[in-house]
């Protein structure tokens, strides 16, 4: 409507309108205002309603969360990184681990095979010094089996009656033996690179299981133009691409007792399951208690909400009425 009014008239009309509305609200102007606002009242109440606020908030939070999940960064927030994608390492794909669901325990047969792979392959360079032999009992091996495994290794003990240290076969309470006596020895045997302890490696790396699995199975020839120093190997999943560890898992390397086919990916899957157990030995129990706690807590919340409403009903629904005393008749 206003756009049709010729330009010089507009300012004065607007001024007059506002002055009329603010300074001198006569009967006519009130009536006019009510007539004009009645249609926009519904819009206003829709815009200021709680449901609109809640749904707009949910939509905003949802889209930001979705974007962050999809692209890894917050939208419209700048980020500067000194790393190129190659230097950061290829992001591993998500694998359907047998223990990744809310209710899923570890596959203990897989842990058992994974221990075999660790023992025969990884243990040559990597320690696992937070795991004791006794931790394997009732998880992947029977007590008798673990005792036999522990006795294969010798541990220093003492002092004896002559005050000398001596070697004795391992017991259930001993920790898994380390391949090197100290860090310097480990570095010296591996061209200056330290093989990390694997006790918490799944927790200690971005991507966890997926990353370690991808790393173990991801060795390829370097692409054209990528120079890899002598003694290093190319692995696109490793940050920087050059890793001191060579590919160690090959088809048929380890022979499983339970008849599982021995392939590279099977070894990697089993050893990653084993290492995830080593990093989170409480995993199975934690998930089960989590399930029970969630059921109990949520039913208690519902119960307390009901009790609150039950107790507050008379207060919320009461009506206070003021009956003025009748004026005295003179």
């Amino acid at each position, binding site marked *: 409507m206003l756009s049709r009014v010729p330009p010089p008239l507009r300012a004065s009309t607007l001024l007059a309108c506002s002055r009329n509305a603010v300074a001198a609200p006569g009967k006519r102007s009130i009536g006019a205002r009510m007539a004009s606002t009645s249609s926009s009242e519904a819009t206003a109440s829709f815009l200021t309603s709680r449901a609109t606020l809640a749904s707009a908030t949910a939509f905003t939070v949802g889209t930001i969360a979705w974007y962050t999940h999809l692209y890894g960064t917050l939208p419209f927030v700048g980020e500067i990184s000194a790393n190129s994608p190659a230097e950061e390492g290829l992001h591993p794909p998500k694998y359907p681990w047998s223990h990744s669901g809310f*209710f899923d325990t570890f596959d203990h047969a897989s842990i058992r095979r994974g221990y075999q792979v660790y023992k025969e392959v990884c243990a040559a360079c990597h320690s696992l010094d937070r795991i004791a032999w006794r931790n394997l009992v009732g998880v992947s091996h029977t007590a008798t089996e673990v005792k036999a495994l522990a006795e294969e290794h010798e541990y220093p003990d003492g002092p004896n009656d002559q005050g000398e240290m001596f070697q004795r076969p391992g017991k259930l309470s001993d920790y898994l033996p380390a391949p090197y006596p100290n860090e310097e020895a480990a570095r010296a045997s591996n061209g200056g690179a330290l093989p990390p302890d694997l006790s918490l490696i799944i927790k200690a790396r971005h991507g966890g299981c997926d990353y370690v699995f991808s790393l173990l199975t991801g060795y390829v020839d370097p692409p054209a133009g990528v120079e890899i120093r002598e003694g290093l190997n190319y692995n696109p999943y490793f940050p920087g691409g050059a890793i001191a560890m060579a590919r160690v898992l090959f088809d048929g390397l380890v022979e499983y007792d339970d008849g599982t086919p021995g392939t590279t990916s099977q070894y990697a899957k089993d050893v990653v399951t084993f290492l995830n157990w080593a990093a989170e030995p409480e995993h199975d129990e934690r998930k089960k208690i989590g399930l*029970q706690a969630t059921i*109990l807590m949520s039913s208690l919340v519902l119960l307390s909400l009901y009790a609150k409403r039950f107790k507050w009903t008379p207060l919320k629904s009461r009506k206070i009425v003021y009956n003025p005393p009748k004026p005295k008749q003179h």
Partner: protein
Amino acid sequence: MSLASSFYNAFARRNSVFFATIMGSAFVFSIGFNGATNAFWDHWNKGKQWKDIRDKYIEKDE
């Protein structure tokens, strides 16, 4: 007699009975609840837990 008043007369009139009722029902509930959740858990993870594969290896111990 309504359910609420019969409940009150049976369980809540004396504190000793009330306390014993709470303790007893907590005991019974925990057995039932743990039994139900454990049954679901073992059904969901059938064949994966150590107790499912234990028999294969325990025989070697004779």
